[in-house]
């Protein structure tokens, strides 16, 4: 017996990234623009989807990612939105194989948008590509203005940011300048839309931006 050393230099996420590329190609062929929706639990991601889907003219599909339950999926279905559920049973994020299985189980008849609401978490969803065209990050003013400094990767990877619950601003110490300064350092050109889930304020601009970005 003797020892040998082998150089490997293999990216551990390579398989996930390969499947993500395959998922993205599949969805593109169907004319689907895919949005990976990230944000902390309770930021208001599902509420934003309800508003955006009403405003977008193209058909919209939703995949909900949660550790447990299908509360959000049922909520969207009750509004006539085509939604399906992934339960991760403990895992803190969606990965490409999970979305691969979900999209192949869906009937995506018409070109449009697929919103994939990731598990509520500002950390790991940013680390895993799932086959999306862009990541949409939602942060509420109640989450705090220090979030870009504490969770930089989510802000750096975001293709668009929704700053939600702006109606709560008078009751909180949210420092918008400090927040935006952090965002701009990490992601100089990302659009930031201020939105209010209660009144629907701000979503028309966000939907218009999404439609233009997707060419739909």
């Amino acid at each position, binding site marked *: *017996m*003797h*020892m*040998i*050393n*082998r*150089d*490997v*230099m*293999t*990216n*551990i*996420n390579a*398989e996930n990234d390969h499947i993500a590329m395959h998922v993205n190609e599949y969805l593109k062929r169907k004319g689907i623009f895919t949005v990976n929706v990230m944000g902390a639990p309770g930021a208001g991601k599902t509420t934003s989807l309800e508003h955006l889907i009403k405003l977008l003219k193209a058909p919209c599909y939703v995949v909900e990612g949660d550790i447990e339950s299908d509360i959000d999926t049922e909520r969207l279905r009750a509004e006539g939105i085509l939604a399906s559920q992934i339960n991760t049973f*403990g*895992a*803190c*994020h969606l*990965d490409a194989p999970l979305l691969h299985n979900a999209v192949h189980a869906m009937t995506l008849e018409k070109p449009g948008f697929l919103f994939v609401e990731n598990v509520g978490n500002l*950390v*790991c969803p940013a*680390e895993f590509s799932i086959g999306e065209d862009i990541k949409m990050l939602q942060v509420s003013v109640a989450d705090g203005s*220090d979030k870009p*400094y504490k969770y*930089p*990767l989510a802000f*750096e990877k975001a293709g668009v940011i929704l700053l939600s619950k702006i109606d709560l601003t008078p009751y909180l110490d949210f420092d918008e300048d400090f927040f935006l300064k*952090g965002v701009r*350092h*990490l992601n*100089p050109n990302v659009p930031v839309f201020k939105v209010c889930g209660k009144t629907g304020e701000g979503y028309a601009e966000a939907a218009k931006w999404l439609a233009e970005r997707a060419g739909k």
Partner: protein
Amino acid sequence: MHEYSVTVRIAKIACDEAEKAHGRVREIDLVVGDEAGFVGESIQMYFDVVSRGTPCEGARLTIERVRPKLRCSSCGALFEKKPFSFACPLCGGNGTPTEIGREFYVKSVKLEVSDSCT
């Protein structure tokens, strides 16, 4: 849970190398950036479980950590970020993210092989 699936991948990558060489894995050398989002101790814990009964069982994991660095958009210097600041310590310019600190790969493996198989 976060580290479990990636640990399965690490064991698979190492086992593939062992099978090619008809040997057993004695050491796996990983490079993990601090912003890769994976905790070394968790990988080790899961590794002990997922490697049982495979050519990786009993292998030692070494983890080389890499500190994240920003690049100054004014003077080009690479520097480590201070909490709540992106400012370059040399010129005060804006630091922008780089890939340094996001590494996550199997660098090499040490295999034990029988003398007749090489």
